[in-house]
């Protein structure tokens, strides 16, 4: 019955005999169910912490080597499942660059819009989960309502609430339906209203400040050394954002700021995320203004399925459709590293193609994984009760961390 723990703890016996070794997780609400923190405590202070991940290892890279490029898309969605669009677009860009495909204007703007829309959903989820773990149930329920409206709205567009599989190589699955943009504006107004309430509940809240200010402070050099990117790095003061530094999609045309923090503590990470939600709302509105008519998928016979009427009437279109669906698209040999600014940080796809219809190697540079590597430095020296807010502010997403 007592199956032995799947990994040796490294802290089975504490070096200093007086310390207690406490196991937090992996089945723990605050560690999002997939991280085990073995902490050596001296009273309430964490002396050493050993962070174990890998409890959600689902073999993404091995699966990618056995599936065609389009069949990999649902797997890619389930990496950072809070913002599935961002993952899909980064992956699609890697394949499209190897193929040498230029996207249509409408596709670029819609992809940017959805990236920012999903960023709002991801940051809302992160803030909601972390403050619920600190006890603020009201704020959690407000943010869940916001997020549910976003999910239903994306359900109208893609057919799924969470893992959309909306991206296609060379474009998108379908165009925006009727009335989608009107509802989008309604949801943005609703989000702004509810975010004001969250600011009112948390920003100057004595308890929240006490739990998050000056906890898990990170200097910029420390953050770079341990590989932090995204809002966690920006909370230390470094304005590193791929949307500004190496812009992709429609970001060169958008006017937005990159919020940075001052101290790199938990409060700054929370506040940077809240500011990024505001920036994303403005960016979504800008993208709606940039939308122009046109096709969403590029008209390239290597990747785009032919029109249904042609498939049912012409033999060439039928064969073409058959080959694209059964064999998959064929990508010329080469390798590429594409990284996007996802809500967690720099998500990179390193794709090696051998000229067949399946990736030879598809590696994901996951920001959450690298953050978990550096997280023990943020836990050591602080109290055991600080583990929960610190972990929550990292926004560790298991699908991305363990792949």
């Amino acid at each position: 019955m007592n199956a032995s723990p799947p990994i040796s703890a490294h802290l089975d016996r504490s070096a200093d005999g007086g310390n207690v070794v406490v196991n937090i997780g992996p089945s723990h609400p605050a560690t999002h169910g997939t991280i085990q923190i073995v902490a050596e405590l001296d009273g309430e202070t964490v002396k050493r912490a050993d962070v174990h991940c890998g409890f959600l290892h689902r073999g993404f890279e091995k699966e990618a080597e056995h599936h065609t490029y389009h069949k990999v898309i649902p797997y890619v969605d389930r990496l950072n499942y809070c913002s599935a669009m961002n993952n899909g677009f980064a992956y699609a860009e890697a394949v499209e660059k190897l193929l040498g495909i230029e996207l249509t204007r409408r596709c670029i703007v819609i992809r940017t819009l959805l990236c920012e829309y999903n960023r709002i959903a991801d940051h809302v989820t992160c803030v909601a989960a972390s403050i619920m773990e600190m006890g603020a149930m009201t704020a959690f329920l407000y943010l869940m309502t916001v997020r549910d409206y976003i999910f239903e709205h994306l359900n109208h567009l893609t057919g799924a609430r969470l893992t959309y599989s909306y991206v296609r190589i060379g474009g998108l699955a379908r165009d925006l339906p009727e009335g989608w943009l009107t509802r989008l504006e309604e949801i943005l107004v609703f989000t702004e209203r509810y975010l004001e309430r969250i600011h009112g509940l948390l920003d100057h809240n004595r308890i929240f400040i006490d739990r998050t200010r000056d906890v898990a402070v990170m200097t910029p050099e420390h953050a770079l050394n341990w590989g932090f990117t995204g809002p966690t790095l920006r909370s230390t003061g470094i304005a590193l954002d791929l949307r500004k530094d190496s812009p992709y999609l429609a970001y060169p045309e958008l006017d937005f700021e990159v919020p940075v923090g001052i101290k790199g503590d938990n409060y700054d990470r929370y506040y940077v995320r809240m500011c990024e939600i505001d920036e994303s709302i403005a960016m979504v509105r800008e993208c709606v203004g940039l939308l122009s008519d046109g096709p969403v998928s590029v008209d390239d016979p290597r990747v785009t399925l032919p029109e249904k009427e042609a498939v049912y009437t012409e033999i060439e279109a039928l064969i073409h459709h058959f080959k694209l669906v059964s064999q998959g698209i064929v990508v010329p040999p080469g390798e590429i590293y594409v990284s996007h600014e996802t809500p967690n940080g720099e998500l990179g796809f390193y794709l090696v193609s051998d000229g067949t219809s399946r990736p030879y190697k598809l590696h994901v540079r996951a920001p959450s994984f690298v953050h978990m590597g550096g997280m023990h430095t943020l836990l050591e020296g602080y109290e055991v009760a600080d583990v929960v807010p610190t972990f929550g502010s990292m926004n560790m997403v298991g699908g991305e961390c363990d792949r």
Partner: protein
Amino acid sequence: MAVMDYMTTKKDELVGWIRKFSLFPYPFVTACCGMEFMAVSSTLYDTDRFGAALPRFTPRQADLLMVVGTISHKEAPILKKVYDQMCEPKWVMAFGACATSGGFYRNYGVLQGIDRVIPVDIYVPGCPPRPETVIDAIMMLQDRIAGDHHPILPAEQRGREPSHADKVFPIFPTADGVPPSQT
């Protein structure tokens, strides 16, 4: 006697009604389905209407183990340990395609369905399942609980097979290892 049978049935109905409307879930959340679990517990699709909103984050106090998300082989011993720590009566919900059958992950890392290691009472399909599907599953489970036989009286306990929990965690083991309810 017929009267005793009638009283037992009425007792079972009452206990079933109590148990079905006071489920304490242990959300064993791992992956994407966790997002839908959060959504189904929140205001728009409320599990609190069914009395099943209050999660107990310790298996000792929970009776519904909701396995939400993919279970890898690395996580399987932890799942088994949590299941064994729960007391009777307990039910298991396999939430999502990955918990039901491994989902679309068929590789070295993923357990192909949690029913390979623990018994499951209700399977919820979907990747992730819509909150309405989860509510439907909870209601089906409630119907099952309502119609179940609930042997809570000592008279019913006497002479029955020791349960899995009795064998694994005998609270007051007697000299020959038989629980007191059997003597």
